[in-house]
C-alpha cells in the first residue's frame, strides 16, 4: 500500500508587531490546523513569533531559476531609477 503523504506547508512568522511575516521554513501536516499547531511547536519555541501564517506549498507559484535573466536583468540598465543618478550641487540641502 502507498500511504498518502501529508502535504507540505510553508511557514511565515511575524517576529514583532510592526514587522512583516517572514518565511522561516516548511513542514508536513495533515491539514492547515495541524500545520499551524506544528509550526507553533517547531518555529516559536523561543518566543520567535507573535503571529504565524501557513500556506500550502503547492499554492506557491514561483519564478523559474532558469528565467532569472529575462525576469531581472531589465532593471540593470535603468540606473535612472536610483537617486544617485542625478547630479546636484553639493550645497543644496534636503534632496
Amino acid at each position, binding site marked *: 500500500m502507498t500511504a498518502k503523504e501529508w502535504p507540505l506547508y510553508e511557514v511565515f512568522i511575524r517576529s514583532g508587531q*510592526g514587522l512583516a511575516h517572514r518565511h522561516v521554513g516548511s513542514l508536513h501536516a495533515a491539514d492547515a490546523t495541524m500545520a499551524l499547531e506544528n509550526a507553533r511547536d517547531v518555529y516559536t519555541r523561543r518566543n520567535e513569533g507573535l503571529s504565524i501564517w501557513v500556506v500550502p506549498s503547492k499554492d506557491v507559484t514561483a519564478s523559474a531559476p532558469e528565467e532569472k535573466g529575462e525576469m531581472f536583468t531589465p532593471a540593470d540598465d535603468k540606473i535612472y531609477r536610483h537617486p544617485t*543618478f542625478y547630479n546636484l550641487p553639493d550645497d543644496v540641502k534636503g*534632496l
Partner: protein
Amino acid sequence: MTDEARIAELEKQFDDYVEADNKAEPKDWMPEKYRKTLIRQISQHAHSEIIGMQPEGNWLTRAPSLKRKAILLAKVQDEAGHGLYLYSAAETLGRSRDQLEDDLHQGKAKYSSIFNYPTLTWADVGAIGWLVDSAAILNQIPLCRCSYGPYARAMIRICKEESFHQRQGYEIMLVLNRGTDAQKQMAQDALNRWWWPSVQMFGPPDEASPNSSHTMKWRIKRFSNDELRQRFIDQAVPQADVLGLKIPDPDLKWNDDRQAYDFGAPDWDEFFAVVKGKGPMNKARLDHKVRVWDDGGWAREAAMAHAEKESARRASQKSAA
C-alpha cells in the same frame, strides 16, 4: 459588564497601547473609528498616487529627450506601484479593492488637491518633482512610524523609491535655469504656479484641522500640518536660491528669533474650492479615471474568463488521467 462598557475598556487599552508606540496589525482588535480613519486616509493616499499619474503622464510623449522620457516613465510607473502598495494596506482593514475604486469613481473619496492643477509646460514636470514630491516626502517620512503595521511598511518602501522623484525634478529645474532666458522664464513660471498649491498640500492650518487630534493620539500622524509646512518652506527657500528662482511670496522673510522663515497666508478659499471640486482639472481627472476603468472592463473580464477556462481544462485533464 455591558457591551458598551466592554468596548470602552478595549478602546482605552488600544489607545494606551498605540500611544506607547506599539503597532497594530490587521487581525488585532481596533476601535471602529481607528479602522475607518485609516481606510479613509490610506485610500485617499492610494487614490492620490493613481490620479497623480495623470499630470505627469501628460508629458510622457513630449519629454524633451529619450533620457527624460525614460526617467518620467519610471517615475509614473513608481506611482502606479505606490498606489498598489497602499490599496493593499487599505484592503487589510476590510474594504475590498473594488469598493475602494468605486468610492473614488463615485466622488465619495478624495485625493490630494494638488493634482487638480494642469501641467502646462515641461518645467511643470520639474516643479512637481521638486516641490510636490518634497512635500509628499515630508508628509510620508513620519508615516513610516505610523501605528498601523501594513501602512507603515508600505510607507517605508515608498519613501525609499520617492527620493529619485524629488531629485530628478530638481535636476530638471537646474538644467532649465542654465539654459536660455525663455527656459529660465519657463522654470520661474512653473514655480509661480506650483508654489502655493504645494504649500497647501499639508492641509488646512492646525486650528482648522478637525481630524488631527485623534490621528495624533493614535500615532497615525506625528506632526501637525503647520509644523510640516514650516519644514517644507525652510527647506525649499535655500533650494530655490541655488536655482536662482524667486518664490512668489512677498511676505517670505527669515526670522532670526524663530530660526525659520515667515511666510504669507495661502489662499484657503481657493484650497477649499478645489477640494470641493472647483479646481481647473477636477472633472477632467475623475472623468479620465472612470473612462479608463470602464474601457478596461473587457480586459479584466477576458483575463478572468481565460483563467477559469484554463483551470477547467486542467481539471478535466486530471480526471481523464
